[in-house]
């Protein structure tokens, strides 16, 4: 195409945006700086040439380097979604309502470890862990309490749940039924990314093969019944937290993404039927410009993969939509207030990188779960970026920076090299089973530790600029009696419910797991009868076995 054609393309793009804005206007009628300099939606090179179109293009268009929406945050800000949950369902429900009152726009549920690994609160394996890192959910009853008074047709909910994702999604659907909200109106996300559990996060239950089946069952079920749901959040976050570089984060996440796409295609699903519901989850880390470039590179790689390699036709299948959380492992226990500044920079990079939603960490997370005050400051940090900094007034403001474009190209190149290597090993599942990604990440983590200890890498307040006799901040304590209370509640439920019906649904689930039916409807039946997460996962454990790390 000639330059002339590209210019015409740009004019067409502008016209389409104009048409669209007539239907849904932007946040402000006009955007300008303090000096009344008019700010446009997007800035492009003076001459739009083929190289620009191929690598960068226009926002909202393939290859989406500049973002998945044509006008990005001018239309709607990212979703401010603070991950929260601790103790009992009642306490967490109160925190949720508080956060919604404070202007948060989506919920994000943290579950405790027994829930994430499919144990009931009274299981011996759950000793000491009930309600610690998130809310304890044993049955639909706890889920009803957790979501009490929250309209599920208006609020979107992200659930950090992986191995038992089907169970928690089923509970959410069942609460919706009780609120009178049909499943096709529900919106939210289940993390549902088992591969990174084996790689970095550790809350796996079953071996890879049946785990992949559970995931594709969710894809198929949601495509039909819960179309607004993000069926997976393919996560680089924990890979980065475990110690990887930005390039490894991109490469391993996208390699995992490809594994899910392949599994779904093998299960007989059409790419354009499930791919629009795939979403991603990245870390917002320290190196400001590398982080921005990382988002841009990942969007470009994913779009090309989906269109060119898998032949997806629906533009929504090409879009790499991403949630970001700032890097927990960058926070220091020393001088914790400094973490507010770290989080601000990391969050700003994610916004300049074009994230769809964002969690900002609280300053005290290297010490304990955040207090209400810390959680509020973290949310305010996002609000200051959104409403005061002006960075949301134009799309992808750093495009065309020699440096940022160079970093974007380099990250793409190096990530593709890694992905090719994984491909040659037989894909992400085989690479995980061989422990390849785990080793690469560990090497990097050790290297980083060495650099910090030698002082080559400066961590302000920790290995440099230290303070003697720091005051200890107020920390959040989880009620130590919670474990006992939760156990009592669970025992009462077991006495009260229709146990014959529970047995029946569980044995149907067992038969289904032994066969090849989609397990989602069967799990939904169990949940409706108040079968517990431990009972449901126990049945699946008995059929699928358990994964043992190498």
């Amino acid at each position, binding site marked *: 195409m000639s330059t002339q054609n590209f210019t015409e393309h740009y004019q067409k793009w502008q016209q389409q945006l104009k048409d669209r804005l007539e239907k849904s206007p932007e946040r402000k009628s006009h955007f300008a700086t303090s000096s009344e300099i008019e700010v446009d939606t997007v800035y492009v090179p003076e001459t739009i040439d083929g190289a620009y179109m191929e690598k960068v293009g226009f926002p909202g268009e393939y290859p989406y380097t500049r973002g998945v929406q044509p006008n990005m945050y001018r239309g709607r800000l990212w979703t401010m979604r603070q991950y929260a949950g601790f103790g009992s369902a009642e306490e967490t429900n109160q925190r949720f309502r508080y956060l919604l009152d404070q202007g948060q726009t989506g919920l994000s549920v943290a579950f405790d470890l027994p829930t994430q690994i499919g144990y009931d609160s009274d299981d011996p394996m759950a*000793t000491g*862990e009930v309600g610690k*890192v998130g809310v304890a959910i044993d049955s639909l009853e706890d889920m009803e309490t957790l979501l009490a008074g929250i309209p599920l047709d208006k609020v979107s909910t992200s659930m950090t749940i992986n191995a038992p994702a089907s169970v928690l999604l089923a509970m959410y659907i069942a609460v919706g039924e009780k609120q009178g909200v049909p499943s096709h109106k529900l919106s939210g996300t289940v993390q549902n990314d088992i591969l990174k559990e084996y790689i970095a996060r*550790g809350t796996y239950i079953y071996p890879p093969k049946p785990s992949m089946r559970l995931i594709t069952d969710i894809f198929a079920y949601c495509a039909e019944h819960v179309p607004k749901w993000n069926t997976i959040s393919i996560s680089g976050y924990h890979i980065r937290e475990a110690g990887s570089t930005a390039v490894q984060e991109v490469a391993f996440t996208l390699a995992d993404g490809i594994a899910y796409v392949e599994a779904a295609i093998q299960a007989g699903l059409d790419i354009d039927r499930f791919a629009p519901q795939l979403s991603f989850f990245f870390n917002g880390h320290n190196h400001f410009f590398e982080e921005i470039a990382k988002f841009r590179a990942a969007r470009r790689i994913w779009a090309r993969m989906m269109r060119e390699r898998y032949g997806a036709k629906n533009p929504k299948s090409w879009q790499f939509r991403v949630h970001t959380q700032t890097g927990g492992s960058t926070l220091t226990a020393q001088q914790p207030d400094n973490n507010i500044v770290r989080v601000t920079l990391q969050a700003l990079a994610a916004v300049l990188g074009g994230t769809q939603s964002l969690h900002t960490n609280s300053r005290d997370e290297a010490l304990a779960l955040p207090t209400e005050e810390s959680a509020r400051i973290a949310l305010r940090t996002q609000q200051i970026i959104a409403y005061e900094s002006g960075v949301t007034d134009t799309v992808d403001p750093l495009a065309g920076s020699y440096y940022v474009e160079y970093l974007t190209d380099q990250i793409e190149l190096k990530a593709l090299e890694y992905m090719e290597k994984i491909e040659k090993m037989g894909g992400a599942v085989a690479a995980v089973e061989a422990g390849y990604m785990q080793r690469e990440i*560990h090497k990097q983590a050790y290297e980083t530790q060495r650099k910090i200890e030698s002082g080559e890498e400066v961590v302000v307040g920790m290995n440099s600029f230290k303070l003697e006799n720091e005051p200890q901040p107020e920390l959040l304590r989880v009620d*130590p009696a919670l474990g006992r209370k939760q156990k009592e509640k669970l025992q009462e439920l077991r006495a009260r419910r229709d146990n014959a019906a529970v047995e029946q649904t569980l044995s149907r689930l067992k038969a289904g797991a032994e066969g090849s039916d989609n397990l989602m409807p069967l799990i939904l039946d169990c949940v409706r009868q108040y079968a517990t997460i431990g009972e449901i996962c126990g049945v699946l454990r008995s059929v699928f076995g358990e994964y043992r790390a190498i």
Partner: protein
Amino acid sequence: MSQKIRVLVAKPGLDGHDRGALVVAQALRDEGMEVVYTGLRQTPAQIANAAIQEDVDCIGLSCLSGAHNELFPEVVRLLREQGADDILVIGGGVIPQEDIPYLKTQGIAEVFTPGTPTTVTAEYIRAHVKRKKTSFVQPPNKIAHIGIAVSSIDAALPFYTEQLGLTLLGRETVESEQVQIAFLAIGETRIELLEPLGPTSPIAKFMEKRGEGIHHIALDVDDIEERLVQLKANGVAVLNDTPKIGAHQAQIAFLHPKAAHGVLYELCQYPETKGENENE
């Protein structure tokens, strides 16, 4: 027979964050220890049993989920129950300062919170593990001598013989060290005056920096070779990897002063069982 410190790095409870545990495990290996890592999701009983089976000197517990107050003390209790309370138990992870005193009353020797350099953890383990009773190391028999650097033996001797009234046992030249030595008896042990024979002598270099004064303390030991192997395995810096021959045909080796808080120690093993004093 390996004399390396053996450490079990363990993840009690359900949390899957093992970046810290893996990094510490690797760092302790690099410090010369033998490290066994349990993997994720271990119950206190599994950890205590593994520690006993693996015959470790130390257990490092890592927990980031907040379950430390329940899980760490249980490990110690089970060790005690099985008579294995000589195993040093330390912990790390996301642990609030205010929980540390409680954990210490429960037998957790030390807690290392985020930001602790791995070298600090390694030093702590080295200083606090109770060596196994099967260890062959006996404490040194006595102080063999105290070495004092002087610019001239002739000038220094009158103080020792006339003012302190010590007996001069003899003089000897050790060519390999470029030093002349005068031996003075004092009770069971001796004082050695060391005079450099030339500018390349270690004693000359010492005096250049520090002037005359106490240079080293020599310890009379048995099994010097095995002792050196073990010290090295435990990460103690040495100046001589294997013994060399010193005055009186004794086998000697020096430890690095940084291993002994600034003191230069010499290990001496005398031929047969004869002590230094009888060796005139």
